C-alpha cells in the first residue's frame, strides 16, 4: 500500500517536471534590510538649476495643489483650489501609466470637502473652472480620464453613486450603485475605451462598467477592503490593493476575473506602474514600505522602507524615481505649529544606480496630500517673456502636435477674460481651536445655539448621526479622544471631521490630540450630508464616517429630501464675479446621450 502510493507520487512528480516549464532565473537584488535606508552623501539632485519633471500633489486639507520639482524635491508653489483636494488626472489621454499622456493644458482635481472638481490650467498655474457635481453625490475621486480625454469618471463614495462627466460642459450621467452600504472609491479607466473599474470597499469588490454607454456590467470579488485600483499601461490587467488582506488581486481585463493573488506586504494602498508595465510599486501603510512587484512574474521582488505611514505615491515619468507620500512624520522635523508637516520621500528605483533602493530626499510637506502625478517639465512653456498672448491665441508646438487654447481661451470661458480664477471657496465659516473639551458627546441647546459635541477615535465617531433643524445656529465641537492611532500606535495621530458638500468648507475640523476644534455656522440648507475624517489616521480611516441631517420643517432629511438643486449651484462658496466659472449642476444631470459619447 505504502509502496504503491510512493510509486504513484513518483509518476505524478515526473509528470510535473514534464508539464511545468523550467523555473527562470530569479532577479538578484540586495535585500532591503542589508541596505541603509537613505543617502547622506551629496547627490546630483541637491541643486539642479532646473528640474526635469514636476510633481503635482493634491494637498488634501490645505485646499491647495503642491508643485514640487523632481529630483530636487523643492516646493515651487501651491495652487489654491478649494477645501480638501484628493485626486486628479492630467488632461490629454489616459494612455500610459497613472501619469497618462498629458497634453500639458489642465489637470482636474477633486475636492472631497466641497464635492466639486476643479480644473487647473497647468500653463498659468491657476484654476479655471469648477465642475459643480449633481447633488447629492459625495465625491472622493476623479482619477479616471477617458482615452480621448473628453470624459472623466468620478466616484460618489459618500452616497454610493458614480458619474461620467463631459469635460466640455459638465453634463453628467449619474449611476446608483446598490446595495447599500456602497462606497465606490478609486476608479480607473481601461485604456482601450471599453471599461471603467472602481473598487468598492463596503462590497470588497471591483466594479466593472462600460465606458459608453456608461453602465454597470459586473462586480468582481477581490480581497478584503480594496483600495487603489489601477489598469496597467498594457491594459492587460487591473491591479487591486486588497488593503486588509495584505495582497494584490490581479484582474484579467479580457476575462474580467481574478487571475492571481499576490502577497505584497501589510496595508497595501496604491499602485504605480512604470511606463513599460514591468514593475508595480505599491505603498504599504502598515508595513511602512514600498513593495516592488514584478508584473511578468507576479511576484514581490523588493521592498524599500519608508518614514512613515505612507498613503499615496507617484512615479517619475522616466521611471528613475518614486515618491512615497507619507502621512506621518513621527519624530522627524522641527515643530512649526499645531498641525505637523507630513512628508514626501524620494526613492531611487533605477536598478543600475549606486543608490538604488535608497531614499535620496525627504522633505516636510504641508497639508495632507493625497494623489500625486508627475509630468515632464518640457510640457510647461515660458509665459512671461512677452509671448503669452500669442501663445494663448495661436498656440505652440510640442513636436508635431500643435497645442492651442483657441481664440476664446477655451470653451465655456468669456471671450475677454483670461483665466485667473482663485476660488474663495472656504465658506466664510468661523473655525478654530479651543482647549480640550470633555463635554458629553451629543447635542445640547445653549440659548438658541445647537451645540454639537462629537468625539473622534480610530476608527469612528460618537455620535454617528446628528440631526439639527433647518435654520439652526450650530456650534460644532470636535475632540480627538485617541491616545495613539489604532492599528499603528503612532502617538501623533490627527483626526478630522468634515461634513461633505455644502457644509464641507464650513466644518473641516482638524482634531489634533490635546485640543478641540470648533466651527460655527448656520444650517441654512436642508439635506443629508455624510461626514468623514479628512485627516489620514490609519488603514480604516475611510470608514470613519457619520451622517449630519439638516431637517426641513416637518420632515426628515434624506438623500431625496433636501435643497439639493440649490446646493448643486455651488454659488454659496464663491464671489459673485466667479459664478461664470461654474459648470455642471443638477440642471445637466443625466443629460449625456449614452451610447453616443465615444471615449476613444
Amino acid at each position, binding site marked *: 500500500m505504502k509502496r504503491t502510493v510512493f510509486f504513484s507520487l513518483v509518476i505524478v512528480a515526473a509528470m510535473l517536471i514534464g508539464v511545468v516549464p523550467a523555473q527562470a532565473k530569479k532577479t538578484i537584488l540586495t535585500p532591503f534590510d542589508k541596505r541603509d535606508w537613505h543617502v547622506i552623501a551629496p547627490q546630483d539632485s541637491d541643486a539642479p538649476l532646473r528640474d526635469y519633471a514636476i510633481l503635482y500633489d493634491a494637498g488634501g486639507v490645505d485646499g491647495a495643489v503642491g508643485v514640487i520639482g523632481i529630483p530636487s524635491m523643492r516646493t515651487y508653489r501651491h495652487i489654491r483650489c478649494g477645501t480638501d483636494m484628493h485626486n486628479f488626472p492630467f488632461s490629454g489621454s489616459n494612455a500610459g501609466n497613472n501619469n497618462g499622456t498629458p497634453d500639458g493644458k489642465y489637470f482636474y482635481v477633486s475636492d472631497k470637502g466641497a464635492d466639486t472638481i476643479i480644473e487647473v490650467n497647468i500653463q498659468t498655474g491657476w484654476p479655471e473652472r469648477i465642475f459643480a457635481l449633481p447633488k447629492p453625490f459625495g465625491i472622493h475621486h476623479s482619477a479616471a480620464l477617458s482615452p480621448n480625454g473628453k470624459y472623466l469618471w468620478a466616484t460618489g463614495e459618500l452616497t454610493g453613486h458614480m458619474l461620467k462627466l463631459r469635460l466640455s460642459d459638465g453634463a453628467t450621467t449619474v449611476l446608483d450603485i446598490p446595495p447599500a452600504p456602497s462606497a465606490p472609491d478609486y476608479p480607473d479607466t481601461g485604456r482601450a475605451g471599453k471599461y471603467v473599474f472602481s473598487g468598492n470597499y463596503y462590497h470588497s469588490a471591483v466594479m466593472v462598467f462600460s465606458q459608453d454607454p456608461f453602465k454597470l456590467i459586473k462586480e468582481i470579488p477581490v480581497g478584503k477592503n480594496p483600495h487603489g485600483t489601477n489598469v496597467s499601461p498594457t491594459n492587460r490587467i487591473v491591479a487591486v490593493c486588497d488593503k486588509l488582506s495584505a495582497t494584490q488581486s490581479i484582474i484579467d481585463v479580457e476575462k474580467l476575473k481574478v487571475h492571481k493573488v499576490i502577497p505584497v506586504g501589510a496595508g497595501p494602498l496604491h499602485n504605480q506602474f512604470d511606463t513599460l508595465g514591468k514593475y508595480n510599486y505599491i505603498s504599504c501603510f502598515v508595513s511602512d514600505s514600498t513593495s516592488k512587484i514584478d508584473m511578468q512574474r*507576479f511576484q514581490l521582488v523588493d521592498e524599500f522602507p519608508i518614514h512613515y505611514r505612507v498613503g499615496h505615491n507617484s512615479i517619475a515619468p522616466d521611471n528613475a524615481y518614486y515618491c512615497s507620500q507619507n502621512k506621518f512624520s513621527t519624530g522627524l522635523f522641527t515643530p512649526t505649529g499645531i498641525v505637523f508637516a507630513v512628508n514626501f520621500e524620494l526613492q531611487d528605483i533605477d536598478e543600475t544606480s549606486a543608490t538604488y533602493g535608497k531614499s535620496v530626499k525627504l522633505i516636510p510637506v504641508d497639508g495632507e496630500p493625497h494623489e500625486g502625478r508627475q509630468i515632464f517639465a518640457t510640457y510647461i512653456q515660458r509665459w512671461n517673456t512677452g509671448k503669452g498672448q500669442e501663445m494663448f491665441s495661436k498656440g505652440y508646438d510640442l513636436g508635431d502636435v500643435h497645442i492651442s487654447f483657441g481664440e476664446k481661451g477655451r470653451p465655456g470661458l468669456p471671450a475677454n477674460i483670461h483665466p485667473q480664477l482663485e476660488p474663495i471657496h472656504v465658506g466664510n465659516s468661523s473655525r478654530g481651536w479651543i482647549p480640550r473639551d470633555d463635554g458629553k458627546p451629543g447635542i445640547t441647546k445653549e440659548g438658541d445655539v445647537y451645540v454639537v459635541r462629537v468625539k473622534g477615535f480610530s476608527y469612528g465617531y460618537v455620535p454617528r448621526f446628528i440631526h439639527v433643524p433647518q435654520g439652526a445656529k450650530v456650534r460644532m465641537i470636535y475632540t480627538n479622544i485617541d491616545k495613539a492611532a489604532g492599528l499603528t500606535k503612532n502617538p501623533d495621530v490627527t483626526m478630522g471631521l468634515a461634513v461633505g458638500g455644502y457644509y464641507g468648507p464650513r466644518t473641516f475640523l482638524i482634531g489634533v490630540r490635546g485640543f478641540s476644534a470648533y466651527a460655527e455656522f448656520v444650517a441654512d440648507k436642508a439635506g443629508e450630508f455624510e461626514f468623514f475624517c479628512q485627516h489620514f489616521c490609519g488603514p480604516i480611516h475611510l470608514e470613519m464616517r457619520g451622517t449630519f441631517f439638516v431637517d426641513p420643517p416637518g420632515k426628515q432629511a434624506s438623500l431625496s429630501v433636501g435643497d439639493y438643486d440649490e446646493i448643486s449651484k455651488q454659488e454659496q462658496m464663491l464671489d459673485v464675479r466667479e459664478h461664470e466659472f461654474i459648470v455642471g449642476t443638477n440642471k445637466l444631470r443625466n443629460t449625456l446621450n449614452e451610447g453616443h459619447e465615444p471615449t476613444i
Partner: protein
Amino acid sequence: MREMRIFLAVVLGAALVFTTMFAQSVSADVLGNGSAITDCLQIGKITSIGDKQLTIATQFEKKSKNYTLHLLPECYVMTARRGEFKKFKELKKGDLIAAYGWYKDGKWNARRIDILDKNDYLIKRLAADAKAGVYYKHER
C-alpha cells in the same frame, strides 16, 4: 487489487488535473501568451516607416510579432528619458520605441511614441529577463 485501484486513481486523477491545467494555459487568450494587437502598449524596433505609420517588430517576447501603428493627429513623439519632443520624421528604422494607444476598427492607433534608451535600466532588465526565459507579456 485494491492497491492497483489506488494507483490507477491517483495517476488518472493527476493526469486529469494536469491535462486541464495544460489545456487552460493553451486556451488562455491574452495573459501569459505574449503581445496581442489589443494591447494598449507595444514595445518594439521600427522595421519600416510610412506616411504617419510605422511597423514594429516586438521585443523581449518569446516570438517577435509585427504590428503596424497609425499615428493619431495628436500623437506625441518624445524621448522616454527626459520627455524631449521630437518630430515623426526624426524616427529611424531600428529605433526601439514604446507605443501607447488602442486598437479600433482594424487599426492600431498610436497616441504617444516614446523613443527608448537602450541603456535604461528597464530595457536592460527586460533583455536580461528574456534571456533567462521570463519573456515580456508572458505573465505567470
